C-alpha cells in the first residue's frame, strides 16, 4: 500500500517539475525577448538622440559662427546626449555625438554618431577639359589623360591622344530665345520650398512661348537661397489648359544647389535630353523643391511689372496629384530659355586616337584617326575608324553647365572685400596676400612665391614673370581657395598654382575676363588668336584654371590638370593629367558661410 501511493506521488512530482520547468523557461524566454526588444528600442532612441545632437551642433555652429565646442551632457526626452567637436581643417569640423538611455552616468544603451560639417562649398570638376561655346583648339601631339566636355567645337592637331571620353554638345544659340528679368522696386522675392502664409509652395512654374521651332538646350533661372536646401528638380512640361501637364514631362534636369548663393544670380540648368519645342506654343519651366522646410528654402526673383507677355507663373502643392491645383502668381519669374540647333563637331588631325567613347553631332578628321570605343553621331567622316559600336542618328549630347556660378563668385568677392581693400597696383615678389581685394594690378617679377590666403580678388591684371608660384596657405588643409581676376592674367614659363599641400586642396585661378569680343580664333577659321584671359606659357599648372567667358592659352609643352574655360587653346605637345580629386573639391567660405553636413561622412557606432 505505502509503496504504491509513493509511486503516484513521484509521478506527480515529476509532472509538476516538468510543468514548472516549462513555465519558468517561458517566463525566462519572454524576459529575454522583452530585454532584446527594449534594447533594440533603446538603441533606436539613442541613435535618434545622437542625431538630435548633430542637428543641435550644426545649428549652434551657424548661430555662433563656428564658436561652439560641444556639450558634456544635455537631457532630452528619455535620455541624454553629449557632443564633442574636433577641427579637421580650416573649414571642416568633426562632430561626435553619443546618445545615452537613460543617462550618461548609468547608460543602459548608447550609440555614437560621427559626422563632418563644413562651411565650404563643394564644387565638382568632372572633366579634365570643360569648355563653353568657344570650344577647344589643340596643337599637334597633345596628350589628354582625362575626359573632355565641350559645348563648342573641338579641333585637335596631328597625333592627338585622348584617354577618356569626348562629349561635344549640340550648340546653343548665343542669345536667349525667351527671357524676362525685373528692375528696381519691381523686383520682389517669390519664396518656395517652404510653407508661406498657409500655402505649401513645393512646385513653382513659369510658362513661356518659344519664337522658333528648335530644341531647348538650357534654361537659366534667377534664384537665391536661405541656408542649404537640397537640389531641386527642374522639368520642362507641356501646357494643359493653362497648367503644366503632369503627363507630359519633356525633359528633367537637376538644379545644383551649390551654384546658388544668398544673392540673386542667373543659374543655368541643363537637362537629361534636349526636347524639341514648337514655335508659339506654351511650355512650362517647373521647379520641384525636394521638401517644404522652414529653414532651408528658395527665392525666385519675381517681376511685379509683369513685363513678360508670353507666359505667366503659377504654384502648386503637388504637381503629381490626380488633379493638381495650380494657382496664379502675380508677376513674372526671372528666366532665360536658350534654344539649340547649332551643329558642333570634333575634328582630329592625322593619326589621332581616342581611347574612350566619342559623342558629337559630327566626327571628322584626317587619316588614321581611331576611336577605340563607341561613336555616337549624326555625321561620321570617312577616314575615322571606330573599333567599338557605331551609333548613327544619335541625338547631340546636351550642353553642360559650368561648376562655378556667378553667385559663388559674388560670395568670394564679398569675403575678399571683408578682408580689406588695397587701392592701387601691388608690386613685389615673395609675399603673403589675402583675403583681400586689390583694386589695381598685381605685378610680379621672376621666381616669386606668393602665399595666398584665399579669396584674393584683383580687379586689374596679373603679370607674373617666369617660375612664379602661387601657393594656397597651409591653414586651408584639404579645402581649396580661389584667386579672382577681373582682367587678364599672364604667367611666365614654369609658373604654377599649388594647393595647401594637403591632398584634395587646389588653388583656383578664376578670370572674369571676356575674350569673346577680342578677335576670332585661328583654329576655327578666324584670322588671329583671341585675347586670352589666361596666358600661362609652357608652365606645369597643378591648380584649376577657370575662365567662363575667356580663352585660356597654353604654349607648347605645357602641362595642366584641369581647365574650365569658354575656349581653350593648347600649343603642341600639351599634356593633361586629370586628378580624380577635382570631382570633389571643397572651397572654404567666409564667416558668412553656413555649416552643413558633408555627404558620406555619417558613421554610427
Amino acid at each position, binding site marked *: 500500500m505505502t509503496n*504504491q501511493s509513493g*509511486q*503516484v506521488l513521484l*509521478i*506527480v512530482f*515529476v*509532472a509538476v517539475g*516538468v*510543468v514548472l520547468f*516549462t*513555465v519558468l*523557461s*517561458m517566463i525566462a*524566454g*519572454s524576459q*529575454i*525577448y522583452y530585454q*532584446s*526588444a527594449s534594447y*533594440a528600442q533603446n*538603441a*533606436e532612441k539613442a*541613435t535618434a538622440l545622437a542625431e538630435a545632437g548633430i542637428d543641435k551642433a550644426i545649428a549652434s555652429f551657424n548661430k555662433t559662427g563656428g564658436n561652439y565646442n560641444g556639450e558634456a551632457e544635455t537631457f532630452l526626452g528619455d535620455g541624454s546626449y553629449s557632443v564633442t567637436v574636433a577641427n579637421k581643417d580650416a573649414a571642416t569640423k568633426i562632430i561626435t555625438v553619443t546618445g545615452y538611455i537613460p543617462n550618461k552616468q548609468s547608460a543602459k544603451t548608447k550609440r555614437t554618431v*560621427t559626422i563632418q560639417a563644413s562651411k565650404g562649398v563643394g564644387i565638382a570638376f568632372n572633366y579634365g577639359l570643360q569648355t563653353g561655346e568657344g570650344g577647344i583648339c589643340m596643337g599637334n601631339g597633345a596628350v589628354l589623360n582625362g575626359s573632355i566636355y565641350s559645348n563648342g567645337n573641338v579641333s585637335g592637331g596631328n597625333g592627338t591622344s585622348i584617354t577618356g571620353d569626348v562629349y561635344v554638345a549640340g550648340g546653343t544659340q548665343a542669345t536667349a530665345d525667351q527671357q524676362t528679368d525685373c528692375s528696381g522696386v519691381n523686383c520682389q522675392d517669390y519664396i518656395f520650398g517652404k510653407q508661406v502664409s498657409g500655402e505649401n509652395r513645393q512646385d513653382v512654374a513659369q510658362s513661356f512661348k518659344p519664337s522658333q521651332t528648335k530644341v531647348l538646350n538650357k534654361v537659366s533661372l534667377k534664384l537665391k537661397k536661405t541656408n542649404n536646401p*537640397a537640389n531641386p528638380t527642374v522639368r520642362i512640361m507641356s501646357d494643359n489648359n493653362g497648367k503644366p501637364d503632369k503627363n507630359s514631362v519633356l525633359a528633367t534636369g537637376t538644379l545644383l544647389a551649390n551654384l546658388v548663393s544668398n544673392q540673386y544670380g542667373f543659374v543655368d540648368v541643363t537637362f537629361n535630353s534636349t526636347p524639341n519645342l514648337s514655335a508659339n506654343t506654351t511650355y512650362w519651366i517647373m521647379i520641384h523643391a*525636394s*521638401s517644404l522646410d522652414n529653414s532651408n528654402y528658395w527665392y525666385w526673383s519675381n517681376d511685379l511689372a509683369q513685363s513678360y507677355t508670353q507666359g505667366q507663373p503659377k504654384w502648386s502643392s503637388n504637381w503629381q496629384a490626380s488633379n493638381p491645383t495650380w494657382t496664379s502668381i502675380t508677376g513674372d519669374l526671372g528666366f532665360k530659355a536658350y534654344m539649340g540647333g547649332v551643329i558642333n563637331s570634333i575634328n582630329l588631325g592625322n593619326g589621332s586616337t581616342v581611347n574612350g567613347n566619342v559623342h558629337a553631332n559630327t566626327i571628322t578628321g584626317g587619316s588614321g584617326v581611331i576611336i577605340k570605343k563607341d561613336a555616337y553621331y549624326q555625321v561620321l567622316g570617312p577616314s575615322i575608324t571606330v573599333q567599338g559600336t557605331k551609333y548613327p542618328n544619335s541625338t547631340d549630347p546636351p550642353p553642360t553647365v559650368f561648376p562655378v556660378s556667378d553667385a559663388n563668385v559674388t560670395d568670394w568677392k564679398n569675403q575678399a572685400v571683408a578682408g580689406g581693400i588695397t587701392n592701387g597696383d601691388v608690386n613685389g615678389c615673395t609675399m603673403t596676400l589675402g583675403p583681400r581685394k586689390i583694386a589695381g594690378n598685381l605685378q610680379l617679377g621672376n621666381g616669386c612665391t606668393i602665399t595666398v590666403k584665399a579669396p584674393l580678388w584683383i580687379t586689374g591684371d596679373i603679370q607674373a614673370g617666369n617660375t612664379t608660384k602661387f601657393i594656397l596657405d597651409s591653414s586651408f588643409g584639404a579645402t581649396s581657395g580661389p584667386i579672382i581676376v577681373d582682367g587678364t592674367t599672364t604667367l611666365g614659363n614654369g609658373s604654377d598654382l599649388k594647393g595647401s599641400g594637403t591632398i*584634395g586642396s587646389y588653388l583656383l585661378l578664376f578670370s572674369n575676363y571676356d575674350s569673346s569680343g577680342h578677335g576670332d580664333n585661328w583654329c576655327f577659321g578666324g584670322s588671329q588668336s583671341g585675347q586670352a584671359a589666361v596666358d600661362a606659357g609652357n608652365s606645369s599648372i597643378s591648380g584649376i584654371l577657370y575662365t567662363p567667358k575667356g580663352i585660356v592659352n597654353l604654349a607648347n609643352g605645357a602641362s595642366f590638370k584641369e581647365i574650365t574655360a569658354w575656349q581653350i587653346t593648347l600649343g603642341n605637345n600639351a599634356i593633361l593629367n586629370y586628378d*580624380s580629386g577635382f570631382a*570633389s573639391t571643397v572651397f572654404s567660405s567666409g564667416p558668412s558661410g553656413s555649416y552643413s553636413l558633408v*555627404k*558620406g*561622412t*555619417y*558613421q*554610427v*557606432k
Partner: protein
Amino acid sequence: MTEKGLTLVEILIAMGVAVVVGILLLSVMINSAGLFYRESSKLQEGLNINDALSKVRQSTKQSSGVIASYTYGGTTYTSSATQVVLKIPALDNLGNIISNTNDYIVFFQDQNKLRYKLFPDAQSSRKSQDQIFSTSVDSLTFKYLNSQNPPNEVTPVSATKVRIILSLKQKNGQTIETNTATSEAALRND
C-alpha cells in the same frame, strides 16, 4: 499471516486510478512541452526579426547609396525586390573615412535563409562577414523610396530610403507560425 492480500477488485481500481492519473499527467507534460516549443520558436523568430531589421537599418543609414549590382568571386548581387546591395564608405584603422573607397554590403534571401555579406575594400579596416540572420524566411521584400512625402517607389539606384518587409514562417506541430515585420531607414550618406 496477519496481512491479507489485495482483492482483484482493489487492484483493478488502483490500476484504473493510476492509469487515469498517468494519462492526465502525461497530457499535461506533452501540452506544456508543445507550448514551450511553440513559444520559444516564436521568441526565436521575434529575436531574429529584431536583429535582422536593426542590422538592415544600421547598414542603410551608413550607406552612401544603393548600387545596381556588385560582383565578387564570380557571383553577382543585383539590387532588386529581394536583394539589396549597399555601398558604405570604407574606414581606416583609426575609424576615419577613406575617400572614394567603398565597402559593399548585401542582404539577400538564400532559400529560407536571410543572409548578410560584407565585402570590404582592400584598404578598409572592416572585416569580411557572412552571417545568417534567420533560417525560416518565408518572404523578403525590399522597397526603394525617394524623399518625397508620401514617398514614391523608385529604381534602386535613385533610392534615398530603403524599406524592408520580412516574413518568417515556422512549422509548429500542426500549425504554421508566420511573423511579419516592416522597417525602413534613410540613406544618411547619400
